[in-house]
């Protein structure tokens, strides 16, 4: 959707929307309630205290360790298109004054896929949380592991999960938010073992992408299959939270679950802005 235009069309209900209204409504369609995807930077602005975000890990760059066909071109194209270097933005921020360690995925960068850099950024985000006693908040949006980095991508599943286990070990809360879509290798690693899992309405959430599942012979599926609503019904989510309530929900959870951290664990060298 081009912000420069005065009007645009909802991809879901096809109704025509006023751009300004659409933005004010946090890119949720006022007619059908469809939650349109958000760029990572906008998500950060909408969720955390104004000006509190300090980006970290900005010096990490993906390379092409397998010489995988077309990987370089695809990645360069994504860099040009998004102006960022990979599918995760990480750093520290505050939410109602409480410091948090955060990572936000950008689906527009190669489908939010997790290669070595994304895995490293998630890992550092969770390690910083554990080390400095700040709750971790991760917004997920990914098609899964980045197959162009082969086994290195698969191992990011293990690495990020190990970092989440560190948070659990030291008693730091870790909250994951599933936005559209949260799939495959990301869902099957750090996303699903958060203490608290929240999803945006109607977000696609599942293990096997349609093409992989078809390849494996999966055919008839329920109507709501792999939606946030399906996954919630099946006990995998704590809540489905509309975008306009996301900030306040996260803030309350940081306050309650992280309540005993603030007095005991937080150190002076917290890397936040």
């Amino acid at each position, binding site marked *: 959707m081009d912000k420069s235009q005065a009007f645009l069309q909802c991809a879901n209900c096809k109704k025509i929307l006023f751009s300004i209204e659409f933005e004010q409504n946090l890119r949720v369609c006022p007619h059908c309630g469809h939650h349109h995807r958000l760029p990572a930077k906008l998500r950060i602005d909408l969720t955390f205290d104004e000006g509190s975000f300090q980006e970290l890990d900005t*010096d*990490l*760059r*993906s*390379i092409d*360790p*397998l010489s*995988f*066909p077309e990987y370089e071109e695809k990645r360069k194209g994504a860099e040009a298109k998004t102006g960022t270097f990979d599918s995760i933005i990480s750093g520290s921020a505050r939410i109602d004054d409480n410091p948090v360690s955060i990572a936000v995925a950008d689906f527009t960068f190669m489908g939010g896929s997790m*290669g*070595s850099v994304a*895995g*490293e950024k998630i*890992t550092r985000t969770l390690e910083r949380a554990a080390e400095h006693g700040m709750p971790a908040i991760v917004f997920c949006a990914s098609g899964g*592991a980045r*197959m162009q*980095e*082969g*086994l*290195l*991508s*698969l*191992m*990011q*599943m*293990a*690495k990020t*999960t*190990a970092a*989440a286990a*560190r948070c*659990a*070990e030291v008693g730091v809360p870790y909250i994951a938010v599933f936005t559209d879509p949260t799939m*495959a*290798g990301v*869902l*099957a*690693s*750090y*996303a*699903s*073992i958060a203490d608290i899992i929240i999803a945006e309405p109607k977000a696609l959430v*599942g*293990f*096997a*992408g349609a*093409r*992989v*599942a*078809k*390849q*494996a012979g*999966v055919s*008839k*599926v*329920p109507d709501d299959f792999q939606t946030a609503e*399906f996954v919630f019904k*099946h*006990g*995998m989510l704590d809540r489905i939270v509309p975008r306009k309530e996301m900030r306040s929900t996260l803030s309350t959870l940081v306050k309650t679950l992280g309540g005993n951290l603030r007095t005991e664990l937080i150190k002076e060298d917290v890397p936040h802005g």
Partner: protein
Amino acid sequence: MAKNFDEWNRPLKELEDGIDKLKDFAKKETNPAKKTDLESKIDELEKRRDNYIEVMFQRLGPWEKVLVARAPKRPYTLDYISAIFTDFVELQGDRRGFTDNAIIGGPAMLDGKPVMVVGHQKGRNIQERQFRNFGMAKPEGYRKAIRLFDMAERFRMPVISFVDTPAADPGVESESRGISEAIAAGMFKMFELTVPTVAIVIGEGGSGGAIGIAASNRVLMLEHSVYSVIPPEGCAAILWRMPERGADAATALKLTAEHALQLGIIDEIVKEPKGGAHRDPLEASQIVKSAITRHLAELTPLAPGEIKNERYEKFRKMGIFEVA
């Protein structure tokens, strides 16, 4: 490109069938001269066979490794268990309402010392394959494994994982019971353990389905096994919308043991008997056993906290990127 192991193996199979036939003739032959003649023919063919195997296995391509890793007669987890351990008692159930037959496990003795064994299990005939869901575990498989990991921790038993799965089960049932959570929880639990853990990929190390029971202190691969972020056919389906280009995808994915070692993913390549593990399962088991015991011997003296940290540091280093 051969589509499966049997197709790829056909020339060798025909050669061996020929040898068997000649041996039959030789056995029945009463004329000593003809018998000698047959025997020298057999000798010659056996040399040709050995030579053929030598050449064939000297530098298997990635797709050939995939085929060998999937060979129907390749030893499976239960074959290794019966050859390597004593006193194995299979334990079952996720204690949550479901059972799984694609992941098996239980306590056993390894040279008189208690260990916990877990592994994917494939089937050899059609009924067995269905019973084992083709080695594709559902959430309850990983949850059973987690229960066994918990017990291993409680009773201070090292954990040995045998990895051999095309992938975790991707069906509707598995989605509805949280297959993703189950895999993630499997890894999570493995990182909490303070007992030594060793995993060995014996056939297919299929993606999340594999790593869910393989986040171990030491990860080994059999020489002709494969380990991949996605099944080559799935990769081809996504990249080129042509699942039949699995061989190309296998090459691109760098899924062989050599590559895994180069990339710092595994700790050791375990040699297979000449012509692959399926040609001599018992010898293969002995080689696997000695590799496992060697790694356990290195890990066992470490303090519980060190064992856990060693594992963390090992996986922490994985990934290749540049710092600008």
